[in-house]
């Protein structure tokens, strides 16, 4: 057994025994420190015995256990008459390798007089567990004081009952002949045993002493005197006193155990009802309503529940429940959610609130907040807080399950709608393209036929087909963007290739114009979807051709931004430029500039922005230095690694 200095052992669980003592907080802090050093989890255990706690003791215990929770420890409350056995049991369940307990310094030097301590018991039962005893100062109040304190807690009505019963028994017994004094003693004993079923430890001890004295004073010789004449009577008196005491104390213990048992039963029933209520709920709102109803019923409080918003990172604004929190209360609720620990009344943060807020936490993820409001002056007992904690965990589990179910449902719907879109796009695409393909190919054939003026007519057909084809492509692209079916396939692209592909696709429309192509020598590859980016550049070139006077020059430029963070492509013209007030408008579907030549649906820029945004880039409209418009695309850029040397 070591005396202090908890070493940082290997991981595993650390267990600290907490009792209703002023040093409990110190123990909890030591355990927290040791567990943090060792990187282990820790459990604060309180063993509830049949002894009922005074208000002060209950408060000390509450504080210690609350602190343990706040420091991240798990709190376990077990019921057992044997503290050491209970500790060992919990230690085994949790596979704890170390137990920390506190022990007052010993003042008694005489070894044999010393009371056997908890540590001694623990060591006897479980030699395998590492036991750390933290020395603490002797408690300021003696054990005797604590006992009296607990006696004083019994109701005055219990004392009244005790006095009444004793008075009635004494009155009845005085009617009997004096020779029946032994039987009177037995009647008293019966009375005490019956009383012990109704009243607490204090009154029953009082009753034992009182009846013994009354018996001695009234019924034993000499009568009406506190002395005893015969030594047999003295034996009788002493034995009576002992039997009365033992019987009453045993009964009191059984009663306390029964009381604890009932509490446990109630707790289990409440939890069962709670989880059944939640299981029946199909939506979050139903779950909240079920939780509120159950908690109101069980704890006699007013209850409110709020869930995390869509993103899951902050608390939603809607509270459901039997009370609506004020702005002040919402601050506490939000803090509970953000810090993932209780807040509000009975805690250190926002203690002035009327409500007590428990976060709905699961796997370190907060799903919402559960709040209860009690009338002023009413406190939540440790057991009730424990129960509330359990409710919060249950509710968190339900919320998580509901959210997961909703997410998978959404995923399924999305997949189905995507599939539908794809089928639709494919068939529309096929239907529209086929006649175009026929026209294009046929006009090619016709070009070979020698008809006067035939070549011009064929050129007309071909241009019309191209325009129609471009239009169809744009409509389909727009649909693709809106259906969310666009999944860019990012790959390394040679910017020169991209520019060449775009220029050759737009070559017919651009014929007759001076085209300036600027791609820096040794420009690094860019990460982009080749087809989408090519389509974007084609759209920009065609737009430039459509919206500027014939025979004006068009330029296309590629480059890397200074700083190397973004690659850029720009298309400039010498046309009228963009009216500044219309720039944002132009990105909208079917929007067309004032100076737009007739023709075109106005889908071009909307698609450009959509395709570039899908690749993580941006589009900006600007003025071309020297007159005209310039549209620049920015794509995220990072340099590719070099191919392995040969």
């Amino acid at each position, binding site marked *: 057994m070591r005396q202090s200095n908890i070493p940082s052992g290997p991981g595993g669980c650390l267990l600290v025994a907490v009792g209703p003592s002023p040093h409990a907080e110190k123990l909890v802090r030591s355990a927290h420190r040791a567990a943090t050093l060792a990187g282990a989890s820790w459990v604060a255990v309180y063993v509830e015995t049949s002894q009922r706690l005074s208000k002060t003791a209950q408060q000390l215990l509450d504080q210690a256990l609350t602190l343990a929770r706040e420091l991240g420890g798990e709190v376990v409350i077990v019921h057992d008459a044997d503290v050491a056995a209970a500790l060992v049991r919990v230690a085994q369940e949790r596979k704890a390798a170390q137990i920390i307990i506190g022990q007052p310094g010993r003042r008694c030097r005489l070894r044999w007089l010393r009371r056997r301590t908890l540590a001694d018991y623990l060591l006897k039962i479980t030699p395998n567990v590492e036991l750390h005893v933290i020395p603490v100062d002797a408690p300021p109040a003696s054990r005797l004081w604590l006992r009296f304190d607990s006696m004083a807690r019994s109701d005055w009505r219990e004392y009244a009952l005790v006095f009444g019963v004793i008075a009635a028994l004494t009155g009845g017994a005085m009617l009997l002949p004096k020779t029946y004094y032994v039987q009177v003693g037995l009647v008293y004993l019966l009375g005490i045993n019956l009383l012990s079923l109704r009243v607490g430890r204090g009154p029953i001890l009082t009753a034992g002493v009182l009846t013994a004295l009354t018996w001695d004073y009234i019924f034993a010789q000499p009568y009406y005197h506190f002395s005893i004449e015969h030594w047999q009577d003295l034996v009788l008196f002493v034995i009576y006193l002992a039997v009365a005491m033992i019987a009453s104390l045993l009964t009191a213990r059984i009663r306390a155990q029964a009381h604890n048992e009932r509490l446990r039963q109630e707790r289990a029933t409440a939890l069962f009802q709670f989880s059944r209520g939640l299981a029946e709920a199909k939506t979050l709102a139903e779950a909240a309503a079920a939780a509120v109803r159950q908690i109101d019923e069980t704890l006699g409080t007013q209850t409110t529940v709020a869930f995390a918003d869509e993103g899951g990172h902050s608390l939603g604004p809607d509270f459901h429940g039997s009370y609506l929190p004020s702005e002040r209360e919402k601050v506490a609720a939000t803090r509970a959610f953000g810090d993932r620990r209780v807040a509000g009344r009975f805690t250190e943060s926002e203690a002035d609130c009327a409500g007590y807020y428990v976060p709905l936490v699961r796997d370190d993820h907060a799903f919402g907040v559960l709040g209860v409001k009690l009338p002023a002056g009413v406190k939540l007992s440790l057991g009730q807080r424990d129960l509330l904690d359990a409710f919060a965990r249950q509710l968190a589990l339900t919320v998580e399950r509901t959210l997961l179910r909703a997410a998978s449902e959404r995923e399924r719907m999305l997949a189905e709608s995507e599939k539908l879109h794809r089928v639709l796009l494919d068939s529309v695409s096929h239907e529209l393209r*086929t006649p175009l393909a026929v026209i294009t*190919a046929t006009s090619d054939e016709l070009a070979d036929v020698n008809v006067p003026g035939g070549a011009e007519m064929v050129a007309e057909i071909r241009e019309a087909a191209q325009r129609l084809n471009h239009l169809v492509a744009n409509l389909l692209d727009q649909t693709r963007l809106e259906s969310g079916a666009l999944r860019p396939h990012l*790959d390394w692209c040679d910017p020169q290739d991209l520019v*060449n592909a775009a220029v050759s696709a737009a070559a017919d429309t651009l014929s007759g114009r001076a085209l300036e192509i600027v791609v820096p020598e040794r420009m690094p590859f860019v990460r982009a979807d080749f087809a989408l980016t090519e389509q974007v550049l084609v759209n920009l070139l065609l737009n430039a051709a459509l919206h500027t006077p014939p025979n004006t020059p068009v330029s296309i430029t590629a480059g890397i931004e200074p700083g190397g963070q973004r690659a850029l492509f720009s298309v400039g013209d010498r046309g009228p430029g963009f009216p500044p007030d219309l720039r944002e408008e132009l990105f909208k579907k079917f929007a067309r500039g004032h100076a737009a030549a007739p023709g075109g649906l106005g889908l071009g820029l909307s698609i450009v922005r959509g395709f570039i945004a899908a690749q993580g880039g941006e589009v900006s409209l600007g003025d071309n230095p020297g007159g005209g418009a310039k549209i620049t695309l920015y794509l995220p850029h990072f340099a590719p690694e070099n191919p392995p040397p040969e």
Partner: protein
Amino acid sequence: MTAGPKPRLLVIDDEVQILRLLCHALETDGFDVHAVKTGKQGLGEVAVIQPEAIILDLGLPDMDGLEVLRRLREWSQVPVLILTVRNAENDVIAALDTGADDYLTKPFRARELLARMRAILRRNRAASEPAVVRFGEIEVDLAGHLVRRSGEELHLSAKEYAVLRILVQHRGRVVTHRQILREVWGPNAELQTHYLRAYIAHLRNKLETNPRTPIHLKTESGIGYRLMED
């Protein structure tokens, strides 16, 4: 087309107009064209007429064109040209990986179709593969591992030559990125397209008259490369 028996072609497409168009263009060019409208009929016909090449539309009413191709490749290596629409790069890549020889995007021009057709038919005559292939000013001597430009020998690194050799062997036909990467850098490099881009840029610098507007080493958007002879 050269004299001799007309090469037999099988066209599988459900669009009557496209069928008529293809038949007209191909027959004018000297092919013997058989046409069917469904994948099932197509698979049946292949065994009967034993065509020298197949034109297959990927969008068929009865079964996926890819599925037709897959079943066909289980027992036949006949060259296949895929017809597809724009924005279907993934389908094209899948088809090329399944064993298609080339693709054509609708709308297409008749002369493009004929050029592709001639290129894929050449694959079947591997026995008569010339040892020296010429395009533009470039002469690639496959037997001697030599590359000349206007008669003057060019120095190519081993990997550059390996990439060029694949393109030359498939000249006129598309070769996917993956295909080249796998053959030159091994199966683990199938996604390292920037290796390939770098080597294509080197090759263009050495082989093209104007490397910035290449006319021989053509890029196929998002799919691969194609060596054009003229």
